[in-house]
């Protein structure tokens, strides 16, 4: 089983998210994360979907997505020809004895400190799954209170664009 990142251009209608989520559930495709956002064209949205599967499943997912009328384009974001990142907020326990240690590690990873309390810190980090995984691991011993990962979002490298009508 591999991890694939798909980038979709879809019509910005209410209901399109439910249609896509429903498709994954109905056909038993594994979805790792899904992000949606606006694009340069307000009638369109872009989704980044991370799926787990093999080549054949990926092929079916792409075809089934393409069958949805509101889906305009589906491409795979391959690691070499695209960039993708996710964002994570991590709330860790921090007291006077651990705080500077945490800050030091955060600096190495270029994580931002976005909230400081007397017994906790919230750190913000962007990156690929490996970087985020490594950082989370290092934070574990301090006591991770909670975290949120945004799911991947990405673009193709170079000047090619998904919306060819431009």
């Amino acid at each position, binding site marked *: 089983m591999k991890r694939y990142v798909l980038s979709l251009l879809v019509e910005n209608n209410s209901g399109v998210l439910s249609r896509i989520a429903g498709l994954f559930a109905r056909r038993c495709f594994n979805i790792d994360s899904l992000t949606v956002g606006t694009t340069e064209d307000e009638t369109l949205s872009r989704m980044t979907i991370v799926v787990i599967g093999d080549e*054949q499943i990926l092929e079916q997912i792409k075809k089934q997505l393409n069958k949805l*009328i509101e889906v305009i384009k589906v491409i795979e974001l391959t690691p070499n020809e695209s960039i993708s990142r996710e964002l994570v907020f991590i709330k860790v326990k921090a007291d006077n004895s651990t705080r500077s240690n945490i800050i030091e590690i955060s600096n190495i990873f270029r994580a931002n400190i976005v909230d400081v309390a007397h017994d906790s810190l919230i750190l913000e980090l962007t990156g690929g799954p490996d970087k985020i995984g490594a950082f989370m691991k290092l934070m574990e011993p301090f006591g991770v209170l909670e975290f949120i990962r945004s799911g991947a979002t990405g673009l193709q490298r170079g000047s090619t664009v998904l919306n060819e009508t431009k």
Partner: protein
Amino acid sequence: MKASKAIIKCLEKENVDILFGYPGGAVLPLYEALRESDIKHVLVRNEQSLVHYASGYAREKNRTGVCIATSGPGATNTITGIATAYLDSIPIVIITGQVNTELIGTDAFQEADIKGATEPFTKHNYLVKNAEDIPRIIKEAFFIANSGRKGPVLVDIPRNVQEAEITFKYPEKVDILGYKPTFKGHAGQIKRIINKIKASKKPVIYAGGGIILADARTELREFAEMTGIPVINSLMGIGGMSQESTLYAGIVGSHGYQYSNEIIARTDLLITIGARMSNRAAAGFSKLNPNIEFIHIDIDPAEIGKNVEFTLPIVGDAKLILQALIEKDLHMDFSQWLEEIEEIRNIYPVSLEMQPGCIKMNPKEIINELSLEMKDDSCLVADVGQNQIWSALYFKVFGERKFITSGGLGTMAYSLPAAAGMKMANPERQVVNVMGDGSFQMCLGELAVVRENNIGIKIILINNTKLGMVRGLQHDCYGKDNYFGVDLEFQVNFVKLAEAYSIKGYEVEDMESFRKVLHEVLENDEPCLIQCNVDPNFRTF
């Protein structure tokens, strides 16, 4: 113009002549507009049957069938019909009323999220929030339903949207960014198919419902005859290849002919056209025959590689691809293979024999009799259950004959409304409807529609006082006499029931009486019901 009126105008622009409906509060404005239109409205008796009528109509005319239901319970009642049409790729536009836009999401009276509910089995669906969008959406709905891989499209329209004032302009063209079906087959792939056929010794064409939907029967026959390749049908494909042709090689699948399955076991190249390799038909192909090579021709790219991995796929319209293949003018000699097929046929003959130990009528003979007596341009509409299998196996389809049934979803009570819809679409066609006593009791209210509209269908009721098919499965899975919940114990007097609707009813228990009655009723164009009593122990095969 009132939006409700605009909706009807759109339907007129789409040349809708008949629509099937059931009214309610949320479609009142639409019905008021309909009152002033020339479109014929057929009031059905249960929305469960609504989409099936439209399906029969669509399958006769090769055009989009149309139906209307109200919000809430009206809409939810249509769901089975929609799913049935979806799995058989039948083009239908379903218009439902919805509660006023400001009430949506409040659990208002008769509010149901029909768009959400039908997402899994509509090709597409809409909830119209802005009345100005109506002409565009209806134009799109008809285009989507009847192009590419066909299917049902639902348009949900809130009552206040129906009442809004709009400026009516029907769009000339459809332009949907995300919907551009491929029609023409890839030239390189066409060439590769030809080469594969040249290299094959025992090719078989496996033709599905796509042939009929693409109106490619003539092309299929021409290509088969030109190349000398035998043709096997799926259940949905029946009628796609004339059964008079020497190249016709039967029906495949768990409910097909044994000889056809044996042919599949021996072929080296299966050329699949417009069949979706469903588990019921094709699950065993690779198991039956591990050396089989596949070509898959389909309008829907997602069907290719879904259930079987294909060596050679080609996406496009079956008619256009067959035309392109015919142009290659390929003449082959597969006479040795055809001789082998002849031998297989002799080893596994199709028999009409009465099951030993059974009394009353032989259902296989009933269907055979229909096959002999019905016109060359008639249609048999089969329901679901044992009656469906007998109909599929023993009714011969050739010439302009048709055979239709609910193949994909296997929906009981499909046949009566579908037969009626078909007959209304083309009163010239002789339409015979074969069903079980179980299925019939699911939709018998529709007899009123048959009578009211003088729809001259002949209902052949195979009465075995059981849910025969399920009973057979219980026998196969759990052993002899381990039956449960399959007795239709109370013997309904179906003749009296028909007569209650002023429809002539007959009860027969032997072939001779059946022949006599059938002969008589096929002479006229009146609706009738013939109750044929069959031994409950008569097995499917």
